């Protein structure tokens, strides 16, 4: 689409086209400004841009001293820690390529990526990651050196190829002195077209693929995002999503380096909510489940509030539902309502935003999955400018963004700056942008299958442009199937609609090449557990709770509502859910049922629970199943259960299919 005229002169000059150059630039122009913070030892420890540069410089030189060469791959594994981000920058300063990995992946998964990406060096967080790498190294001795951040428990690890980052930096400083000019020279040596980073997509099927992105891909896209949303160097972001995920790389690394704003790393997983409130980010990014959890928490906590507060809350939330989003979008609202909303802002919205830590937010994104319209509207009606974003690793995130004032919950907005989007005849969405990836690493076939000669990328998603010009995504293109009668079947679409209910944590829909739609449901243990407690239902755990008749009634209600909803959709009205069951086990990434980003692996599940699927279509009321499961400590065991199956209510289509 049209490129914006500001782009070419954005903060920008042609020569600031790599992260090393940007880092040098910030250290020079805003050296004393805070670049990163980390809550450590009870306070927010800060690094200014020049301190970041010093550390990166030492680390880079240290890596060089250890033999790291341009083109080498550096694995980064751990929670969001400043020194791991610095590790990324250090690799880039040497012309190397950082490869961030998911810190919670098991050794096997990690071994694949390390092998596939030809990783030679690694900068990791702690003993846990070191242990995994040591195990991998036994099979794959190509790892030359490992640096770790936190020495706890590693005192007695005596390996010649294992050192702390401190030690690495110490070596680096010596190396730096011995080789004056080396760092500057190598930091300035890369160019926009060079490889910046490799990010592994988790992929719902098969092994992950390494997406190779150039500096231009990353930096131009990051800059376009900054321009479109008017971000400044004064933003504060909280880096809490996995570093291996493209979103974190864009928001907590690339955009920070382009705009010069501050990245904050939380103290630990257990303190994220506190840390969020302390920092009060101005620019925030979270996948829908984070917003969902937050909303669930709000509702659960409000349940225990006094009557007066509950009344106030519900009264003003109703008001917000009516006028909140309109006020946010600067649409016309009567003066009385406006005044009332102001009062609500003082009594409820403001405090709520503040307690959640979202009070200072100027811009919040959600992406990765469809977000429930209720959830979405909840936040917007509170006055939080949350917008949906449609993106992919292959396009360095930005494909479509909801423009200010034109936010519709069921669409993902209009194409981002410099992005062209079109719909393929098959219904699949295609795009072309500066962010389009270089290639899949060592996988030309996949590259060719995804990216056309002239740079168009198949997203794999089915969708269409609505009348208002906004893109609407239905489902993964390959998942969109047909029922036996030829009706369109969009499983993800149905699943998402189910998941919008707080009681339903996961849903898996079946129906392709079958007579009708059936689903598996995973209840949300916390929400349903709370619900059960309030009704004095006793239960001993997930399996027990999932099996209760009352819970089935509850879920039935949700399923019926989805069916009613579907009956309004011209394309999907006939794919209403016929039968459903509440699965006796929580779907788990460790069992391969979910991806690391918590997407359901439908075909895997279909295979694994084949007897249940069969039973759904056989019309029987109950089915016995035994499943092998992996426990947290790594042991495996068998889980047996009798799972009940229920029928869902059917609705006559409201709109006729055109």
């Amino acid at each position, binding site marked *: 689409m049209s490129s914006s005229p500001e782009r070419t002169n954005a903060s920008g000059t042609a020569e600031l086209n790599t992260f090393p150059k940007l880092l040098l630039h910030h250290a020079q122009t805003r050296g004393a400004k805070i670049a990163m913070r980390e809550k450590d030892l009870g306070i927010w420890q800060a690094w200014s841009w020049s301190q970041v540069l010093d550390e990166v410089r030492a680390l880079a030189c240290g890596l060089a001293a250890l033999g790291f060469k341009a083109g080498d791959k550096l694995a980064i594994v751990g929670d969001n820690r400043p020194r791991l981000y610095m590790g990324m920058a250090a690799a880039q300063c040497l012309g190397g390529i950082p490869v961030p990995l998911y810190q919670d992946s098991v050794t096997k998964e990690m071994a694949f990526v390390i092998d596939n990406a030809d990783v030679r060096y690694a900068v990791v967080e702690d003993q846990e990651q070191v242990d995994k790498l040591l195990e991998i190294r036994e099979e794959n001795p190509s790892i030359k050196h490992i640096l770790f951040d936190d020495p706890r428990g590693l005192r007695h690890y005596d390996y010649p190829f294992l050192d702390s980052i401190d030690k690495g930096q110490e070596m680096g400083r010596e190396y730096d002195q011995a080789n004056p000019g080396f760092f500057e020279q190598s930091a300035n040596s890369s160019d926009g077209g060079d490889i910046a980073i490799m990010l592994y997509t988790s992929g719902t099927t098969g092994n992950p693929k390494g997406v190779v992105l150039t500096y231009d891909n990353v930096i131009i896209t990051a800059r376009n995002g900054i321009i479109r949303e008017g971000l400044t160097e004064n933003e504060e972001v909280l880096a809490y999503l996995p570093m291996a995920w493209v979103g974190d790389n864009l928001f907590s690394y690339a955009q920070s380096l382009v705009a010069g704003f501050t990245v904050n790393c939380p*103290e*630990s997983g*257990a303190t994220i909510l506190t840390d969020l409130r302390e920092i009060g980010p101005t620019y925030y990014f979270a996948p829908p489940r984070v917003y969902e959890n937050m909303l669930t928490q709000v509702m659960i906590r409000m349940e225990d509030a006094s009557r007066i507060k509950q009344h106030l809350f519900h009264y003003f939330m109703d008001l917000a539902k009516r006028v909140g989003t309109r006020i946010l979008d600067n649409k016309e609202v009567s003066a009385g309502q406006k005044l009332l909303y102001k009062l609500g802002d003082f009594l409820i919205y403001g405090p709520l935003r503040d307690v959640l830590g979202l009070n200072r937010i100027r811009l919040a994104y959600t992406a990765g999955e469809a977000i429930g319209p209720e959830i979405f509207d909840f936040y917007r009606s509170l006055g939080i400018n949350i917008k949906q974003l449609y993106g992919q690793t292959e396009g360095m995130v930005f494909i479509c963004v909801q423009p200010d004032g034109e936010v519709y919950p069921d669409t993902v907005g209009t194409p981002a700056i410099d992005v062209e989007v079109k719909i393929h005849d098959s219904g699949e969405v295609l795009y072309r942008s500066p962010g389009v990836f270089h290639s899949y690493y060592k996988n030309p076939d996949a590259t060719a299958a995804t990216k056309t000669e002239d740079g168009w990328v198949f997203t794999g998603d089915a969708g269409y442009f609505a009348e208002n010009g906004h893109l609407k995504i239905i489902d993964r293109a390959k998942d969109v199937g047909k029922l036996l009668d030829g009706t369109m079947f969009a499983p993800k679409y149905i699943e998402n609609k189910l998941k919008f209910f707080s009681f339903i944590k996961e849903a898996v829909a079946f129906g392709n090449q079958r007579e009708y739609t059936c689903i598996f449901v995973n209840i949300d243990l916390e929400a349903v557990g709370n619900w059960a407690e309030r009704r004095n239902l006793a239960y001993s755990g997930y399996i027990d709770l999932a099996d209760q008749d009352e819970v089935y009634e509850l879920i039935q209600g949700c399923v019926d509502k989805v069916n009613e909803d579907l009956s309004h959709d011209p394309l999907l009205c006939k794919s209403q859910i016929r039968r459903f069951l509440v699965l006796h086990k929580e779907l788990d990434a460790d069992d391969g049922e979910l991806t690391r980003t918590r997407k359901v692996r439908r075909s895997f599940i279909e295979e694994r629970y084949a007897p249940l699927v069969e039973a759904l279509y056989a019309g029987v009321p109950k089915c016995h199943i035994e499943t092998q499961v992996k426990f947290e400590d790594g042991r495996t065991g068998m889980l047996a259960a009798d799972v009940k199956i229920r029928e869902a209510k059917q609705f006559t289509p409201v709109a006729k299919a055109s």
Partner: protein
Amino acid sequence: MHERKLGDVVLQAEGISLSFGAMRVLNNVSFDVHQGEIRSIIGPNGAGKSSMLNVINGVYHPQQGSITYRGETRQQMKVHQAAAQGIARTFQNIALFKGMSTLDNIMTGRNLKIKSNMLQQAVYWGKAQKEEIEHRRKVEEIIDFLEIQAIRKTPVGKLPYGMQKRVELGRALAAEPDLLLLDEPMAGMNVEEKEDMCRFVLDINDEFGTTIILIEHDMGVVMDLSDRVVVLDYGNQLADGPPDVVRSNQAVIDAYLGVSN
């Protein structure tokens, strides 16, 4: 596990006998503790284990016997003397300062290291504040070590049992002790909490080289953690030696292990 090298004897209890009125609590108990060792005391309830710890850090004064600590032999320790010489401990029944936060509890553990006087503290300027900050940093390291960041400012009375035990360990660690007495640190914990606590005990021994005397009922834990074990039964010393030796000692099996089976 790496090879363990034990140092010299740091503590020697010699013929300790303790009674309250007609009640004999300890009867001629003798054992030594080496630098860097994890030394366990086991025995059934009422065997005198806690009393032994109380003798070591001066709460109880034995009628007979002596304690040699760091080369100095005393008939009895004084409580603050023991503390000043680097003996810290945790308690069987949690003995935290209930009105204070986690942070303040652990800060209190550093009281011996604070040098500023009352006037300086009243003015809270210069030395006193500098000290507060210095010690806060140390305490934060302990909080980090014990992974209790999330409860830093919570009043300890509000914490669950397992967490309170952890805070108490933190308070003991704050003194940077040479000898740490742990009185049933894992009592009443679930498996997960026990595992964490075991890890902390090992890490403390490992990272700081702290010598540890441990009272524990969970035999699995004792056998895993300890270098050597003393077995007490009604104040009498039944056995003393490495875990596997003690485990196969017939007197111990009869008096203790047999009972628990």
